[in-house]
């Protein structure tokens, strides 16, 4: 079997739309538009998240995120960061749509600033409101399999459980619960937050995640294009390995050289 024949059989589809890349990129915290541009080029991302904020009245022509995002190559996915209630999340989603975005939204409801963890109750409420308003909803959630199932049943397009707190670079600390979410999900599972190294992204994909979202690790890199490339390769590697069949862990060794045919002992 060859990649050429096996790869096309693996489309990544969200809400009926097919994507090539399984690596979503967050655009926050980059030192410059140029750095972001390089990271996006390096990982060849299609889905990129953005936030909505008050315009700076003293800097109207300020360096805009829009100068980097190419509508032909990128799907701009607005998040609801800053919202602490379902109503605020709905308001932000509508503003984004009015600004010309497609009706997709990364639902993010994080009431406390220290760990920026998602609120399960408000997130579920907001998801219901947003779906009623015709939005395609991608909710950021705790790695809670029951909550994930309830959101799926409400009609969210994906679930986006966290691996660790946003920006912590700690990796797949919620591995056991992510595994259960993947096992039970009928919508794509996108592991979001905490993935600080390509190996973390590969691990999530090997577990069977449909995609990953990375931001901090790219923004913090010294060489943004290279790090973008590294995450793209690792995400693909993990996906391919998941489909190619990984072996089980063993508690003892298993010889990789034959245990017979030894020469006569000296």
């Amino acid at each position, binding site marked *: 079997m060859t990649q050429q024949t096996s790869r096309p059989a693996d489309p990544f589809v969200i809400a009926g739309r097919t994507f090539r890349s399984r690596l979503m990129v967050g655009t926050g915290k980059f030192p410059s538009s140029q750095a972001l541009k390089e990271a996006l080029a390096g990982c060849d991302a299609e889905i990129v998240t953005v936030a*909505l904020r008050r*315009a700076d009245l003293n800097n109207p022509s300020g360096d*805009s995120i829009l100068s980097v995002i190419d509508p032909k190559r990128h799907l701009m996915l607005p998040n609801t960061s800053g919202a602490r209630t379902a109503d605020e999340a709905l308001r932000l989603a509508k503003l984004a749509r009015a600004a010309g975005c497609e009706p997709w939204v990364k639902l993010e409801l994080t009431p406390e600033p220290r760990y920026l963890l998602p609120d399960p109750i408000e997130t579920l409420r907001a998801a219901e409101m947003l779906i009623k308003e015709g939005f395609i909803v991608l909710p950021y959630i705790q790695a809670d399999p029951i909550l994930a199932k309830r959101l799926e049943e409400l009609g969210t397009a994906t679930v986006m459980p966290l691996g660790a707190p946003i920006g912590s670079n700690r990796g797949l600390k919620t591995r056991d619960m992510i595994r259960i979410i993947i096992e039970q999900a009928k919508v794509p599972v996108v592991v979001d937050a905490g993935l600080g190294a390509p190996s973390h992204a590969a691990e999530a994909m090997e577990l069977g995640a449909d995609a990953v979202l990375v931001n901090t690790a790219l923004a913090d890199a010294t060489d943004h294009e290279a790090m973008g490339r590294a995450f793209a390769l690792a995400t693909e590697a993990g996906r391919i390995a998941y489909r190619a069949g990984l072996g089980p862990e063993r508690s003892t060794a298993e010889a990789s050289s034959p245990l017979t045919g030894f020469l006569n002992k000296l």
Partner: protein
Amino acid sequence: MQITLNGEKREVAGGTTVQILLDSLGFTAEATVVERNMDILDRSVYATTLVADGDSIELVRFVGGG
């Protein structure tokens, strides 16, 4: 008359439309969304919508976010 613009009190002359306000601040309509008293304004009405005394106006734009 006085309005609240992105949380700051501002004096604006009577007869000011949203378009005039944007122009005076140096904003282009494309990159910005305008929310007036919690209602999102369609760009097509910027030129015909007058700013009223006491209006609360938010100029919103996209920024990098995760």
